[in-house]
């Protein structure tokens, strides 16, 4: 064990996840490093959907999401690649300090960029570090016997996983190092795909928007277009707020990343509940004052607008304080 010890407690975003050991760290480029993680006792890791990401806790507080680069079929290790961002929140710098033997908390793999099962060909488009999830797609496609092709844009000398991509895709890989050649290749490929093809793009947001816009102009409907959107499928942790339980005379703080239901239960209040996901309607609470931030699927739009009830398993508060009839 080195100095980068395991944080004292897991962040809510990685709670219920895994505690893994760094087994290998290898530089891909001057600013990108690949980190391999495995179970310390050598057990298999959960399989994952191609294009999935891991939420990794760094330092004591922060979490970042990184794409997994493997096919996801029955893995014994997870590999992520991290671009060092000097002006970022510090996550990538902390990740770059990891060495073999360090332990980290990670979430279970989360899927938000899945391949379409009906596709007979996958057209993958990546810029820079955006190579990571599409590499996972290319590997899974090879596993399943479907074909894929990749357009990979990177600055000369700054491309991660280039050798792996060449080996995996052979002539189906097109490498581009400037904008003009990329535009030409993209147009060529977008007009030459059979009707079983789906498009997947990952890279900086303006890059993804430009590729998707171009595809739409050439008649690609949205059902064929897939782009990486980190965390789109999950609820963000939200802001902390206070609740005032009028009948019990209790005042509680609900921290970011902790649900109101959890907070109430920790304070010894029992609330009937079932799904804890905002769908079953069991944990409804009457609101006396304040505007809830409704994040459930149960209440109708009209009920949400009335702001007299809320689902405490997922919903939070727009106001600094909510008053509840509890």
């Amino acid at each position, binding site marked *: 064990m080195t100095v980068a010890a395991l944080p004292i407690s897991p962040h809510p975003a990685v709670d219920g996840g895994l505690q893994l050991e760094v087994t290998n760290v290898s530089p891909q480029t001057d600013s990108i490093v690949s980190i391999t993680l495995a179970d310390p006792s050598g057990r298999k890791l*959960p399989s994952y959907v191609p294009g999935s990401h891991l939420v990794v806790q760094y330092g004591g507080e922060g979490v970042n999401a990184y794409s997994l680069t493997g096919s996801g079929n029955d893995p014994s290790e997870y590999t992520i690649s991290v671009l060092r961002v000097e002006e970022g929140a510090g996550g990538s710098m902390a990740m770059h300090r990891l060495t073999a033997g360090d332990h980290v908390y990670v979430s279970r793999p989360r899927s938000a960029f899945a391949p379409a099962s*009906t596709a007979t060909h996958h057209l993958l488009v990546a810029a820079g570090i955006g190579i990571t999830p599409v590499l996972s797609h290319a590997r899974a496609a090879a596993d399943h016997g479907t074909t894929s092709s990749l357009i990979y844009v990177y600055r000369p000398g700054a491309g991660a996983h280039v050798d792996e991509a060449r080996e995996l895709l052979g002539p189906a890989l097109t490498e581009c190092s400037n904008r003009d050649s990329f535009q030409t290749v993209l147009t060529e490929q977008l007009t030459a795909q059979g009707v079983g093809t789906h498009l997947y793009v990952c890279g900086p947001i303006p890059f993804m928007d430009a590729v998707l816009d171009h595809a739409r102009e050439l008649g690609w409907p949205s059902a064929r277009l897939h782009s990486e959107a980190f965390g789109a499928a999950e609820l963000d942790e939200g802001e902390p707020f206070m609740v005032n339980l009028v009948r019990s005379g209790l005042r509680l703080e609900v921290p970011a990343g902790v649900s109101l239901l959890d907070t109430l239960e920790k304070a010894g209040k029992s609330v009937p509940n079932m799904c804890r996901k905002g*769908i079953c309607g069991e944990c409804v609470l009457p609101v006396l004052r304040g505007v809830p931030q409704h994040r459930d699927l149960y209440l109708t739009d009209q009920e949400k607008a009335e702001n007299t009830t809320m689902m405490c398993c997922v919903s939070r508060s727009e106001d600094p304080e909510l008053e509840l009839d509890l």
Partner: protein
Amino acid sequence: MSIIIDKDMDIESLPDRIRRFPFPFSGDTYRYSANVQPANNAAATDVGSWGAGVIDIDEFYLDELADRDRILRRDPSRMQVLPHMRPAVWDTVATLLPTMAEENPDIMSFHREGNNCRWQNKLQNLDVEFTVGDDDSLPDGPLRFLGTQIQDDIVLLDIRDNTMWLDAGLVSFAADWSFGFDVGMSFMEIHHPVPRVKEENIISRAEQFLMRLQPGEQFRRTNWTMTIGRRLDTSTETYPEWGPDRGTIANDPDMPDKLHLRVEVQHLIRLPHTGVLLFLIRSYLLPLRDIAQVPTWREKFGNVLAELPEDMAEYKGIIRYRKAASDWLLAG
């Protein structure tokens, strides 16, 4: 939670089929709801519990599997896999067999090295080796094989374009629906015939919920209807065989023994590698006479049947006899 049981009822002496039965009613009325909860924890009933694990194996194991085998031989349309669902079938096998081995270590074991697997099941004196991804490595293919190992019916829902599609499955014990006809339909299309749910928005909420599940997450819910005779195959396909009983059971002196409460325990599992939603449907049958052995069940079920609105009773196919059943239960 208070447990009110007649003083003269000896819970210990009740048979397993009652003590393990997933009695679905918590009160005296029933309406459709998105009654989902996390799987893998025991739900207590007034006389026992159910649902500690995902795959339940009980005294009817071999009988029900033999029944399924007969049904599939007679009507192969009960099992279908659209071509793009082959990886999801393997994902199901690679998820459920290890789960069964973990839940029943004394009778089952599963080992995997790469894609090579070995499965042992002492209940069937079975020891097989197969390769994940190779359909020919299991007799009659992976889905048919899985159907010889678990009592549950298997439905696989693909998620594409923000919609769920019923694109594969093995359903031998359908409760008044036709799997073979519904293959390829969207979740909304499948539920089109169910009354009320459109108005109450339940199906679209359920669909949103299921699509937001992350791979590896496991939930469950119950559903219920009634079946005449200890008959699991009440599919639309065989309706001419079992349908006539609905018209005669109310006046049948053997009604308390022939008429069963049928409860489905449905597990909803987002498969880890394909992200496909696995929907397992395990059907339990308990005759009215057994239900009447538990006074709280007799009363609740009697009241639920008496109160159930006409349209729901019609859809469940119980409208011709629910009053007779309710009267018998409440007469105690």
